[in-house]
Every structure is written in C-alpha cells, then in structure tokens.
C-alpha cells in the first residue's frame, strides 16, 4: 500500500495533473464554449448566421483584411529592423558581453500597455498626430524584441565551422552571408514572424490608444462584440475565425520547417 502511494507521488503524470486541470478549465473549456457560442444565436438556438454575417457585412471583413495588412507591414518593419540588429548581436567579436543583448531585450520586460501609453505621451510631447503612422510605430516598437530574439538565438547557434568552411571554399563576407548565414537563420525569422504577425492581428489596446480609437483592428472588433450580450455570439464566431486562421498559419509553419533546410539553398 505504502509503495503504491509512493509510486503515485513519484509518477510524472501525477505531477502534471495540476497544470492539466488548469489547462482543461481555462483553455479547453473556453475553447469549447467559443465553439458552441459561435454556432448559436443570442437565444441559444443553433445557427450559422454568425458566419454568414461575417461574409455579408463588409465591416468586420474589411477590418480583418486591414488588420492582416497592418500585421504584414509591422512584421516586415520588424524584420527590416530586427534582422540586422540580431546579426550584429550574434557577432561575438563585436558583442563581447551579453549586456547589449539585454538592452535589446529589455523592452520585453515592460508591460506592453505601459509601453504603449509611454509612446502616446511621446507623440503628445513632440506634437506628432496620432493615427495610422503612430499605430505602425507603436506596433513595431512593441513587437520588435520578439523578432530580434529568435533570430539572434538561431544565429548564435550557427556552427562557426560552417562560416569558416565557406570562407575556405572561396566565399567573401557577402557570399558567406548570402549562402550560409542567411539560409541557416531562416528558422529564426520564421519563429519571429509567428511571434509578431499573429499577436498583431488580434491586438486591440494598442490600436485604441495610438489612434484615439480611430482605427480598429480585428481584435477591437472581437472585443466590442463580446462586450455586448446580444452580439456575444457573433464575437465568438469572429474569435473562432481568427483561431482557425492562426491555426492554419501555424500548420504552414510546421510543414515548411522540414523543407526549410532544402529551400535555403535556392536563395
């Protein structure tokens, strides 16, 4: 008996149970609820009208397309700014201490809302009007560390021998970068995209604050609908649509990872 109890407490699955319970209550159950609500009208009857409404009413659809556009622009800006930064940081000769990395990552430690509020007051002080430009700036500023870090991580893991091998075979600095470092850093860029693109679509607080509620992203629409009891089901449907799209992009990410290594050679 004692042994049985002992074995129960030393099993891995036993130790995992608190989190599994948490997961069931706060992740799986809400997901199921979203799924159920999405297919119900506000009186609780089964319907697909929430989805037809999304396609028929241009407002939500347009916001969605606009959000995706903003997310693409933000992601591109993050790559443009983050990739060179990560490349420089990963150079051990230049970056002898980890302090510089810390400096780049530091914004991640500050709450995203506080950073956004700070950005707003920064725009206020300098007198630059809020709007789409401010939103793009805010999004890029908020999500840049999430792009730098994964790229930096993959770059530091590139075997130094490979760079030497490329040099040895006649590649100059540029060729080493194009033929070895860049293709091998692509997995980092991909996880960077995942970390920036997806959260940008669903963000709402940032767009509200930086555009004085003028521009709304898809996240704002969902939030607005969920807040009101008679459109809650529509909000649930919108959430589900977003979840599906995120899920599909993640699948795409996974399937591309295997071919990643081969694809790099074409570039």
């Amino acid at each position, binding site marked *: 008996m004692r042994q049985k109890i002992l074995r129960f407490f030393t099993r891995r699955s036993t130790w995992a149970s608190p989190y599994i319970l948490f997961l069931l209550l706060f992740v799986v159950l809400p997901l199921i609820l979203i799924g159920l609500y999405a297919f119900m009208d506000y009186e609780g009857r089964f319907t697909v009208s929430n989805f037809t409404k999304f396609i028929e009413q241009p407002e939500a659809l347009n916001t969605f397309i606009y959000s995706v556009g903003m997310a693409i622009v933000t992601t591109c800006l993050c790559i443009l700014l983050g990739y060179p930064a990560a490349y420089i940081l990963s150079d051990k000769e230049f970056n002898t201490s980890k302090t510089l990395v810390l400096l780049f990552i530091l914004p991640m430690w500050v709450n995203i809302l506080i950073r956004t509020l700070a950005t707003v007051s920064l725009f206020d002080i300098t007198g630059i009007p809020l709007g789409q430009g401010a939103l793009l700036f805010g999004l890029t500023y908020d999500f840049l560390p999430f792009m730098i870090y994964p790229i930096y991580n993959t770059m530091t893991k590139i075997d130094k021998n490979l760079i030497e*091998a490329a040099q040895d075979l006649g590649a100059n600095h540029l060729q080493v970068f194009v033929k070895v470092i860049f293709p091998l850093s692509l997995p980092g860029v991909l996880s960077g995209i995942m970390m920036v693109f997806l959260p940008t679509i669903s963000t709402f607080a940032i767009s509200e604050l930086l555009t004085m509620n003028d521009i709304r992203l898809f996240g704002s629409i969902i939030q607005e609908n969920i807040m009101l009891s008679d459109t809650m089901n529509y909000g649930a449907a919108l959430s589900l649509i977003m979840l599906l799209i995120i899920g599909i992009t993640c699948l795409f990410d996974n399937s591309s990872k295997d071919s990643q290594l*081969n694809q790099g050679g074409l570039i």
Partner: protein
Amino acid sequence: MADQRLEPVGNIIDIKHVSKWFKDKQVLDDVNLSVKKGEFVTILGPSGCGKTTLLRILAGFETATEGEILIAGEDITQTPPHKRPMNTVFQRYALFPHLNVFDNIAFGLKLKNFKSDIIEEKVHRALKMVGMTDYEHRDVNSLSGGQQQRVAIARAIVNQPQVLLLDEPLAALDLKMRKDMQMELKEMHKTLGITFIYVTHDQEEALTLSDTIVVMSEGVIQQIGTPTDIYNEPKNCFVADFIGESNILNGTMLEDRLVRFMDTDFKCVDEGFGCNVPVDVVIRPEDIYIMTPTENAMLTGKVTSCIFKGVHYEMTVVTPNGYELMIQDYHAFEPEQEVSLIIKPSDIHVMEKERTCNTFGAVVEDDTHIEMLGASFECLPHGLEKGTEVKVEVDFNKIDLTDDKEDGVLEGNVHLILYKGNIYHLTIVTDEHDHLYVDTNDVWDDGDMVGINIKPEDMRIIHD
C-alpha cells in the same frame, strides 16, 4: 618580386618565425617549417600543443602575431582565407546542413563561376574519388560519419587546391573505419599529387601516412623528420615518449661508445657527447631480448606482469636494483619468472639532456628571501643587496610537491609525466606559465593541481 626569385625552388609552404599569442598566452613559439610540393606532412602532438592553431594560421582563420607565411614564394600572411590557394577538411566535417551532397561539393566551384556542366562533371569525379557515386541528392544529415567525412574531403579536393589542410579528419571515426580511410587518403594523395598538411594527435596515424612528421609540444616544434627518423632517432624525451612505446632512462655517457645506465655499463654506437656527461637513454620495448637465465646476460630481472597484445606479449621486468623495463616479445614469460635481458649496442639510443637541473631567474628581496616564479621564497642568508638579479638552481629531486595546493609557496599543474624506469620526471606548469621539472617517486596524474615548495638549503644562488 625580387624576393620571389630568392626562394628555394620546390617549397610550396614556408613558415618563417611564426609566433602566436592569445592574449597573454603564447601558443606558438618561433615555428619554422618548409614543405615541399607534393609532400604529405603530419603535424603531430598532444592536445593543446598548438598544432591546430598552426593549421588555422595556414588556412587564414587566425593571423600570426609574428612571422610570415609564404605559399609558392608568395607572402600570404595577411591574405584572407577565401583568397588562399588551399582548402580545409574540418574535424567535425562542417558540411552545410541546408545543402545536399551535390551542392555541398559544388559550393566552391559555384563561387568561382564555373559553367554548370563543368561543375557537374567535377563533382561526379570528386564523388567517384571518395567512393560516393550516386549520393549527389542525399541530404547530408542522413549520412553516416564516415560518409560525411568523404563528402567533406570531396568538397575540398574538387577545387584542386595547391595544398589540402586536414584537421584531425578521422578523429571522430571508429577504429576500423579510420584504418580504411587512412589507406584511402594515402592513395588519394598519390593520385592527386596535392600537398597534404595533416594534423593529428594519433602517432600511429602519423607514422602510417606521412612523408614527414613534425612533432610539436607546447607551441614549439620538437623534431621534424621521416617516420623512421622520428621513431629510431628521437631528439628528446618528449618525442621518444610520444612516438611509440619506449623505456626512457637516466644515464651517463662515460666515453665514446660507452654509456652507463641502470647501474650497468653498456656498449653503444653513439659518440661525440664527451666524457661523464648526463644523458637520456631510450630503448624501444621490442629491442630488448628476453630469455631464460643465461650466463652472458647483460641484465637480470623478474617478470612482474605479462599482457597479451595480439601479435606480441607486453611484459614488465624489474631488475634487482629496482629499475622497471617494458619489453615486447613474441614469447610469453610468466610473472615471477627470472629472466635474462640482452640489448644490442645499436638499439641503445642516447640523447643529450635538455637540462640537468632547474634554473630560474630571481631577484633578491632581503638577506633571507628571494623573489622568483612570481612568489617569495625563503633562502639561506647570502649577503647580497636587495634588488640584485641572480640565478637559482634547484635539482630535479629537491622540489617538494604537495597534494593541497594551499600548502605550497606556489601552485602548478602536472603537465607531462615521463617514467624513467625508477622515477617519474614531471613537468609542472605554474599559473604564470613557468616550467618546473621534478623527479619524484610519488604517482601523480596529468593535470593534477599541486602545491610547490623548495627548501632554503636546496637552492643554489648564483651571482655573477
């Protein structure tokens, strides 16, 4: 340009007075080496001896702190690696994981803008050379270690470099595979006619493959020679100990062709050392004849161990006055058996001793203290003024080592252990990179941290 004509003809590589410092640590000390075109040169030494650094300086991944490197008479000391006419085979293969076998091998050719049909033909030929035809489209990660190494070799030789640098290319392979690859490399060297510079710590590999072996230790070239030269005529104890098995003993050269060791006089073939000069004597274990007791034996002893090694037996024999000898013979003599030993004069190799005692530079602190090796030592009163520079001599057996490094005036690491039949000769390196040589009967291991003490009466202070 004028210099170019002065270079001796036929040397593909000239390394001249090359030294390399990493911060304050010297890893190469005045290295000089010339390599003839088409030669197979092996740089051999224990880990940390600077052999890989030397290869990396040749490849261009490191720059020499001092000295110059010439390829076919042309100074390339400051040339970046991608402009050097040589290619490297890396120890851990360093194949590009994002490219398949074909693209890995074609990497260098594509950079040189060859036409695609020529690239294809060259890659096919290189793959055939390493016995990997039909593997073009394989993912390099799906290959075994041996196959990856073959691809790495193909990737280097496909560029037809003037010099091929190989950095312990077989170290990661298992024994059987290593032997096969050795033979293939040797064959490849013959057919290609390229100069090979091969770095290894495996002395057997070096003896098997090379035209010339360069033995290195502590950043210094100890000996350059053919495999037979290095084996039969080692220049010092380090080389004798590192290449093959050997019995190294302290001896005295009594006169030409007569040497005394193990308290016995032996005829030998060496001359020109002078009379009563301390020397090191090397006898290879296979050169000692072992037999059942006979009248005309040079030495007698008792077998203490006998191990079967495949072709021969390896036996340890202890003489009545306490010397231990390692002997290899086809016949087994059981432990406890009394035996007689005979050594031919031509099999006794006599080497000049590099030093007969420790000599340190020191500065007088006061009448009873001197400063040397970065520490303050107590000494006998000497009546010299403070600040006087003196030399201090200490005999090998007068340095005390302690287990606890706190107990010593100085700390150090055991670096090299030579067994001299009845005594261990240790090289101790202090934190300041000074070397101390110690004779002891205690057993220490390579890398042990020790405390170092010297008694005041054992220091000979020399002031001139």
